[in-house]
C-alpha cells in the first residue's frame, strides 16, 4: 500500500472542503482498502467519513430516503425497505457476505469498482486503471464481462446488485461539494465507458454522495430481484434481473425492469417495460417481451451465453413474481 495521510471528517462541509483529485473518502472500506492493498487505487489522502451524520432510513410522500452511510445489512433489515421495496432488500441480501454487508455503506456500494480481474491486476494493461494501456479482457478470459454498453476500450461489468433495482425504480442520488448540493438520477449518474473507461460516473473529484431517494410508486411493493451466479451464495452475478409490476386485474399497467451482470452500468430495459405494458401477465407475454432484452449485445469469446441467460433470467423473475403474489 502506498503512503497516504489520514484524516477524520466531522461534517460534510469539512469532508469536501479540501477534497481534490487524489483524495479518497473512506466509508466501509470494503472496496477502497482492498484496492489500495492491490495498488489499483493509491490516494495521497484518505478522509474517513464514518462520523458524518449521513445515516437514516425514512419513508415520506416522496418515497424512501437512505443516508449514504447506512450499512447494507441495516438497509436490508429495515421494515420500510422489506415491505415497500422488496427487490431492494433482496438485492442487498444477495450481495457479498454478512460481514461485508455489515461494513459496506450504500454510497460506497454505488461506487463499488468492477471485479474485472485485469482491472484488479496491476501487471496487466487496463484502460480503466491506466488510460491508454489497452484492454486485456477483450481477448482474455471474459466470461464474467459485460455484453451491453461496452466499447473497444472496456468491457468491465458493473458489479453492484443494489444499483440494479435502484435504477429500475428511478432512484436519485444526492451529492454535496464545496460548491453546494445537487441531485442526479442514478441511471445517468453512471456513464458508459466509451473512450474514457476510467470515468465511471458524473461525480466530481470533490463531490460526496450524501444519500439516495427511491421514489414512491405503485409498483415498487410488487417487485423481485433474481440473481444467477456460479455458486449459490457469496458470488457476483452472471446475470440478474430487477422486476416490478403494477397490475390491474391480470393486466400489467406499469413495468419497471433492469438487469445486472450484463452491462457496463446497471441496465434499464425500457423496451421490455413497454412490451409488457397493457398486456396480460402471462408466460406468453413475458417470453415475447424479453425478446429484445439483449438487443445491441456485443458478446466476446467466453460470454456469449449471457444474451440467452439474460432473457431466461427475466422470464423466471417475472414468473416468480407472479407466482408469489
Amino acid at each position: 500500500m502506498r503512503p497516504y495521510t489520514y484524516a477524520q471528517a466531522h461534517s460534510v462541509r469539512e469532508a469536501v472542503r479540501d477534497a481534490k483529485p487524489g483524495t479518497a473518502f473512506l466509508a466501509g472500506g470494503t472496496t477502497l482498502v482492498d484496492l489500495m492493498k492491490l495498488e489499483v487505487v493509491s490516494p495521497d489522502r484518505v478522509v474517513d467519513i464514518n462520523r458524518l451524520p449521513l445515516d437514516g432510513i425514512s419513508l415520506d410522500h416522496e418515497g424512501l430516503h437512505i443516508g449514504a452511510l447506512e450499512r447494507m445489512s441495516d438497509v436490508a433489515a429495515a421494515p420500510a425497505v422489506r415491505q415497500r421495496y422488496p427487490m431492494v432488500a433482496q438485492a442487498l441480501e444477495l450481495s457479498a457476505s454478512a460481514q461485508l454487508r455489515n461494513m459496506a455503506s450504500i454510497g460506497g456500494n454505488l461506487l463499488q469498482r468492477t471485479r474485472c480481474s485485469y482491472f484488479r491486476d496491476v501487471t496487466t494493461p487496463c484502460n480503466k486503471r491506466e488510460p491508454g494501456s489497452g484492454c486485456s479482457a477483450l481477448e482474455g478470459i471474459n466470461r464474467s464481462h459485460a455484453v451491453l454498453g461496452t466499447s473497444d476500450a472496456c468491457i468491465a461489468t458493473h458489479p453492484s446488485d443494489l444499483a440494479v433495482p435502484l435504477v429500475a425504480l428511478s432512484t436519485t442520488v444526492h451529492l454535496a461539494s464545496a460548491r453546494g448540493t445537487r441531485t442526479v438520477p442514478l441511471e445517468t449518474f453512471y456513464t458508459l465507458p466509451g473512450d474514457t473507461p476510467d470515468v465511471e460516473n458524473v461525480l466530481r473529484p470533490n463531490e460526496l454522495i450524501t444519500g439516495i431517494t427511491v421514489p414512491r410508486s405503485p409498483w415498487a411493493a410488487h417487485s423481485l430481484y433474481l440473481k444467477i451466479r456460479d455458486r449459490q451464495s457469496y458470488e457476483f452475478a452472471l446475470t440478474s434481473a430487477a422486476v416490478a409490476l403494477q397490475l390491474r386485474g391480470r393486466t400489467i399497467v406499469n413495468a419497471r425492469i433492469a438487469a445486472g451482470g450484463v452491462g457496463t452500468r446497471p441496465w434499464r430495459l425500457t423496451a421490455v417495460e413497454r412490451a409488457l405494458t397493457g398486456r396480460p401477465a402471462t408466460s406468453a407475454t413475458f417470453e415475447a417481451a424479453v425478446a429484445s432484452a439483449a438487443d445491441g449485445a456485443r458478446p466476446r469469446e467466453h460470454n456469449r451465453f449471457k444474451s440467452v441467460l439474460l432473457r431466461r433470467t427475466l422470464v423466471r423473475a417475472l414468473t416468480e413474481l407472479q407466482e408469489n403474489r
Partner: protein
Amino acid sequence: MNEQNDVGGAGSGVSRRSFVGGSLAAATVAPLLTGQAETAEAAPAATVDGVTLVTVRTAVNGDPVTLRVDPRATLLDTLRERLDLKGTKKGCDRGQCGACTVHIDGRRVLSCLTLAATASGHQVTTIEGLTDGDRLHPMQQAFVDHDGLQCGFCTPGQIMSAVAMVENEGPARSDDEIRERMSGNICRCSAYPRIVDAIRDAQRVMR
C-alpha cells in the same frame, strides 16, 4: 501491501523491538492487555517514513487500548502484530475468506479490510475475548463437540461469525439458512456439515 510493508507499517510506530518478535515483543505489549496505554508508544515520532501516524483509542476484548498506528495498518495486522492476539487469522487478506472475522460493537466484520485507524471509539472483540475465564463460549464448545474443523485455520473466523450471527442478527431457522448466512466463511477442508451441526446446537444453548 506486501508482507514487508505489513510488518514495517504495523511495527514502525513502536520501535525496532516489534521486529524482534518472540518474548521481547510480547513483553512490550503486555501492559496493553492489562488495560494500560502502551507506554512504549509515547516516545516515538509522530511520523515514520513520511507517514503521519494516527492515534487510536479503542477497547479490545474489554481492555482499553491506545496505539499509534500507520494509517495503512489493518485491524488484522494490528491485532496480530502489535497486540499479539494471533487467534484472528490472516487467510486471503482480501475480504474473500472470512478467516479474519472479528466483532466491532458486536457486529461481525472483516478485520483485513478494516483500517485500525477507524477503530477509535469502538469495541473490538476477537476469539480471545469469547471465553469466560477458562469456560469456552457455547459456540466454541459446540465446535469441539462436533469436531467442526479439520486443519482449524478458519475456525476462529467461523466461530466469531457464528456468534455474531446468533447474538446480533438472530438464530437461523434452518440448516439452509445457516449455510447462507455463514457463506462469508470459507473452509478449505470443507468441514461444512459439522460446522452446520455445531452452529445448530450452539444456537439452542445460546437462547
